């Protein structure tokens, strides 16, 4: 039984329902970056308390921006998070930070070291979720960095190998998701970009996911996001994963890889990236409609979710907003055309 119907808005205009969603990050308002710097400046009168207030304000603004675009599920755009590994490592016992390391050119990140057994010390995302849930009128999606990526993008000083570290972290992710579900979360997205760089480790990610979903009720929707890699190296293996939805970045590659998912038959829901997050050109509604139709090569409409390729935080904010707005408009038009029988789905994916 699919758990996506719970996200259908009461006033949804069409019979068909393609769930629209974001992947996670959203551009921060410029003033938030400014005041974050101020809060770190010891000579400034701007305190951590002020920064907390600024974060609350920014979250409200972005939730509202998401709602105005018409998205079916929204988030706070990760306004409180700095980076996808650092944020979590900072909250997990057993991690330490030693300083920035190079990614490329003069782009660095504070790659943390696991120096002791990892332990769940404090909630990572429950406060963030509760605030967003209270401020939003739409269901909230919670992105969380997956254990394999948390392990791969850290220095491992304490565990036998990265698989052992991943499993230990998966148990902590499970604990956090249980707390989120307790707080009311119904849509969780596990981000595992590291799988794209080392696809041979798909079995480790599978074992992690088994641990993550243990004792999580079926009505909680679990998505998995993997981006910028060769999907043929993890397909069809990923169909074994205990997830409701697999979220892919395919717009960037002009859907060259879409056929990967057609053989064998795709048996979970597909969340399809339909706008490119690495170009500031805003795709037109017509273009996005064609992109959405690519998804019908893989799944019928009732199994298709529509999202951007990846987090949109590197785009100028107005560009990000326009892309999301066009994405929602395109989705609603596709739904209406499906209702009217104007879209030929082809024999292989049409619903019985």
């Amino acid at each position, binding site marked *: 039984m699919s758990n996506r119907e719970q996200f259908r808005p009461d006033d949804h205009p069409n019979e068909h329902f393609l769930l629209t969603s974001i992947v996670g990050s959203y551009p921060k308002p410029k003033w938030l970056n400014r005041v974050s710097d101020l809060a770190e400046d010891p000579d400034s009168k701007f305190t951590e308390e002020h920064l907390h207030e600024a974060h609350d304000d920014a979250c409200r603004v972005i939730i509202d921006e998401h709602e105005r675009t018409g998205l079916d599920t929204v988030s706070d755009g990760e306004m409180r998070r700095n980076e996808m590994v650092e944020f979590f490592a900072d909250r997990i016992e057993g991690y330490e930070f*030693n*300083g*920035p*390391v*190079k*990614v*490329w*050119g*003069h*782009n*660095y990140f504070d*790659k943390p*070291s696991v120096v002791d057994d990892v332990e769940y010390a404090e909630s990572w995302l429950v406060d963030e979720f509760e605030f967003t849930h209270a401020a939003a009128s739409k269901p909230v999606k919670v992105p969380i960095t997956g254990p394999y990526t948390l392990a*791969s*993008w850290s*220095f*491992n*000083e304490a565990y036998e190998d990265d698989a052992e570290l991943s499993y230990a972290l998966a148990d902590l992710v499970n604990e956090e998701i249980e707390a989120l579900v307790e707080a009311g979360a119904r849509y969780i997205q596990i981000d595992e970009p*590291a799988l794209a*760089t*080392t696809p041979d480790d798909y079995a480790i990610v599978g074992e992690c996911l088994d641990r993550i979903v243990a004792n999580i009720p079926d009505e909680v929707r679990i998505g998995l996001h993997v981006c910028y890699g060769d999907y043929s190296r993890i397909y069809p293996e990923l169909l074994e994963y205990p997830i409701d939805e697999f979220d892919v970045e395919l717009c960037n590659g002009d859907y060259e890889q879409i056929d990967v998912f057609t053989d064998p038959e795709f048996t979970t829901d597909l969340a399809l990236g339909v706008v490119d997050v690495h170009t500031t050109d805003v795709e037109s509604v017509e273009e996005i409609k064609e992109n959405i139709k690519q998804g019908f090569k893989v799944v019928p409409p009732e199994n298709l979710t529509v999202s951007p390729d990846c987090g949109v935080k590197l785009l100028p904010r107005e560009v990000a907003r326009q892309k999301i707005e066009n994405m929602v408009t395109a989705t609603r038009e596709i739904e209406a055309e499906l209702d009217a029988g104007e879209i030929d789905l082809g024999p292989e994916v049409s619903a019985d």
Partner: protein
Amino acid sequence: MTELIATTPGLYPLPDWAKDELSELKGHQKGDLISGDEGPEVVDAYDRARSEVVDAQADAGLDRVVEGQLRWDDMLAHPLTVHENVETGGIVRYYDNNNFYRDPQVRGELTPSGDVAAELAAVDTDALQAVLPGPYSLADLATDEYYGDEADFLDAVAEFLAGEVDAFPSHETLFLLEPSLVENAPTDDANERASAAIDAVADATDADVVVHTYWGAIPEKTYAHLMDADVDAIGFDFVTDADASLYNINEYGTKDQVAMGLVDGQNTLVESPETIRDRVEWVDENTHTDFERTYVTSNTELFYLPVNKFEDKLEALGDAAALAEVDA
């Protein structure tokens, strides 16, 4: 008793102040990276950073001093990405790491540039170790849009590197880094060509030449061919794959000198000098070989590390060599 030489394969992390200062001066985008014609402020920042890492090696008691390759924004692809007949394309993944470099697209003849020689001339030491990508790895990291034939391109890259070496100031040792021999090993006839290309570069210097390999052990056929190259030592990654490295040595022999990658260049866990010394002894025992000289080094470049751990690893390497000498 083997002479122990504490050293590193170079490619150091920038000091944190230099990360900030150069980010400000250069920017964060593809077009902002080093192209070989940087302005005086950038040159000055690199000069100060270079002095710092040269001093750090002296303080750590290393027996060979590298320039640090702090300017090598594109890691091992640097000698090509700054070349006038090479254009830089998109950002591509650097081996199996979360690191990226600009794809060097060779569009014209690879004439000598003198870029690396100028860096080495700025190092004040009497124990200079030059570092270059090996010809096979450099060709592997690049895209050829001029020579048209894989073998010709490899020869051209080797000739180019030999030209760079020709211009080097006096140096004790030359490390040629050849991770592609592991990560994308040659097949069939390419094995012989890779070995000949390395030979051609090694021929350009009177210094000892070490061909250092890492991220595992090279396939045995490739290793057998590499033994034909007239170099002084082959470097092995005992951190990633000690067994396969031993296998190559025991099955096909090795040079009179050896480089042992015993310190993990990609993990912040700092090996103690005693641990490093134990590992040297372990290799000696398991190869039943009395090496004339052993270079004790990290397996990989060190830019993957935060600065504090990088410095700790230099200390550990220096102390390990000193410790062994006292014991002898």
